[in-house]
């Protein structure tokens, strides 16, 4: 028996090209805007003298970690190691890219997660899309990103946003739906508007779970900006790529170590932001 071939690949392809052709102008404007944001972010980070930056980020770690001097010390030392490997500019580029991507993913993902918790229908639509987004090999996102935005930081950022958004949506929905029924009843019984209920009861009670989503989102963003170097995203990932292309273990390892340091610092800082 012959199974007829489904033209899934060609349908997706023509859809992507159709979007690219039809909305080309909008996509270009979008690309310019986000390119600008990432550049400004990076310029700001680069404008700070590296040693001052080390002091600032150690101080942030001290405050966020509630006077945890070990966290502050480790954070400061980590960035000194990056500085001594002469990877400062690449690291700032990576941080700028990660934070702008994660921020955009959270700005879209958290409200979507809240809506998903409020509307079962919406969540039923979202769930298969989220499954697809999380299981599709991350390299695959790079292709339409290139078609829409060309090469560079912006397609890297967009692919990163798509890749890192699902946990933010899922954990926000989970957190809000797990708010105890009695607490929701309290909000209603005292006459709260839906908005008051959300702001004063649901989000604060769900904050721990939502922050776990934020942490996941940032971690995934970091892993994706490295992969996005394949389509021209700059930063440490690009150094790793150079290491691969030249089979230069030294360059590759140093850049990899830089990524690990940034990952650990971002992870610890966001974990400490979670209310106990």
């Amino acid at each position, binding site marked *: 028996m012959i199974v007829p071939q489904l033209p899934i690949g060609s349908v997706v392809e023509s859809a992507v090209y159709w979007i690219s052709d039809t909305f080309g102008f909008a996509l270009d404007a979008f690309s310019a805007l986000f390119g600008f944001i990432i550049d400004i972010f990076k310029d700001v980070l680069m404008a700070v003298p590296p040693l001052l930056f080390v002091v600032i980020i150690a101080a942030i770690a001290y405050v966020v970690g509630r006077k945890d001097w070990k966290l502050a010390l480790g954070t400061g030392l980590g960035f000194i190691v990056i500085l001594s490997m002469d990877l400062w500019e690449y690291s700032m580029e990576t941080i700028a890219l990660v934070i702008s991507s994660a921020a955009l993913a959270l700005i879209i993902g958290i409200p979507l997660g809240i809506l998903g918790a409020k509307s079962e229908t919406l969540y039923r639509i979202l769930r298969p899309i989220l499954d697809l987004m999380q299981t599709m090999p991350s390299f695959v996102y790079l292709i339409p990103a290139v078609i829409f935005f060309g090469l560079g930081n912006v397609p890297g950022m967009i692919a990163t946003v798509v890749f890192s958004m699902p946990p933010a949506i899922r954990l926000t929905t989970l957190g809000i739906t797990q708010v*105890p029924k*009695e*607490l929701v*009843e*309290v909000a*209603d*019984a*005292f*006459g*709260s*508007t839906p908005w*008051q209920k959300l702001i*004063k*009861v649901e989000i*604060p*009670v769900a*904050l721990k779970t939502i922050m776990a989503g934020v942490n996941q989102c940032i971690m995934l963003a970091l892993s994706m900006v490295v992969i996005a170097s394949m389509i021209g995203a700059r930063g440490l990932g690009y150094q790793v790529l150079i290491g691969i292309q030249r089979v230069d273990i030294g360059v590759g390892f140093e850049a990899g170590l830089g990524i690990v340091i940034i990952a650990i610092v971002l992870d610890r800082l966001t974990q400490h932001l979670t*209310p106990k």
Partner: protein
Amino acid sequence: MKKIVVSNLTKIFGKHPKKALSYVEEGLSKDEIFNKTGQTVGLYNVSFDVYEGEIFVLMGLSGSGKSTLLRCLNRLIEPTSGLITIGDEDVTKASSERLRLIREKQISMVFQNFALLPHRTIIDNVAYGLEIQDFSKEERHEKASVAIETVGLKGHEFSKPSQLSGGMQQRVGLARALATDPEILLMDEAFSALDPLIRSEMQDELLELEEKMQKTIVFVSHDLDEALKLGDRIALMKDGEIAQIGTAEEILSNPANDYVSRFVAGVDKTKILTAENVMKRPDPVVSLKSGLQVALKLMEKHGISSIYVVDKAKRLQGFLKVDDAVRAQKAGKTIEDVIIKEFPKTTMDTPLQDLISIRAETDQPIAIVNENDKLVGVVVRGSILAALKTTEEDDEEQVEEVTQ
């Protein structure tokens, strides 16, 4: 005055309540409706009134619909049909905006598991209802402090809920409900999660508060002792219907059906029944003025050996024994010279268990007087025994139930 009037309230759980509702109107039973439509009838034509300033207890086993009924009153659960009038307003017809206002100002609620917001301090928990109404921070903290003091938690304003014991947490829940100064308090198994000693303490305090504040309280409980202690009136629920409404005494001494009598069978009646329930008419009595002659005649006629003596206003003066009366008559004395002024006497609201201990100390009947010292009844040995006997019979029935 009626504060809440509920009439023909029906709640159907399920996606297609209309068909089931029409069957309810036709008078089909809940089982028939479930078999025909697959819809569950949560409340079935429930009607009752709650008077202003009373504690009305909805009592029943779990699944009897008491919590559903309570939540219909402020429409946390939307009733399928029927009327709920609070004051002069039909709450079931209130718009969502109006409903929010009613919940803000008129009705507040206390929850079984306290339901405090874990991220807020005690004072901000108590002030929640006021915050919703956009009171300024000073104003709501001021009102919240008053409520916190009322429930005896002064000094804990800035603790977090997790730092307080269960009993204290429920005081916070109560303070939160009181802070908005509502007319009606809905209390959903408010003390069920507390251990017995704390529970009884909280019940006493609620009664004390209620004496001062005179709120209308609808209290849901599965605990019969709690219901009897708190309730001015009690509605006993079974399977979404009210089996009986009445005061504790009415339900205990006059159960409407088998279910109610089985439900109340285990109750220690000596705590609930009072002198008023067991006393007999004080017949006959003799007036001070009538004299010894009349007193002796009355005793002879009724075949008794002693008689109570009252004054013109029927106030109880003393107790006259036949021997003393005969001796006094021979000696030419008056009633006043020989009446016994030391005799057991108590008021109508004395519980049966206290009557028993009074009886244990004396052989004489116990005189029951009202607040003006007027003789209204008498408790003899036989009346206490009769009351106890019915209690024991009920207990035996219950044992049989269990062994079956």
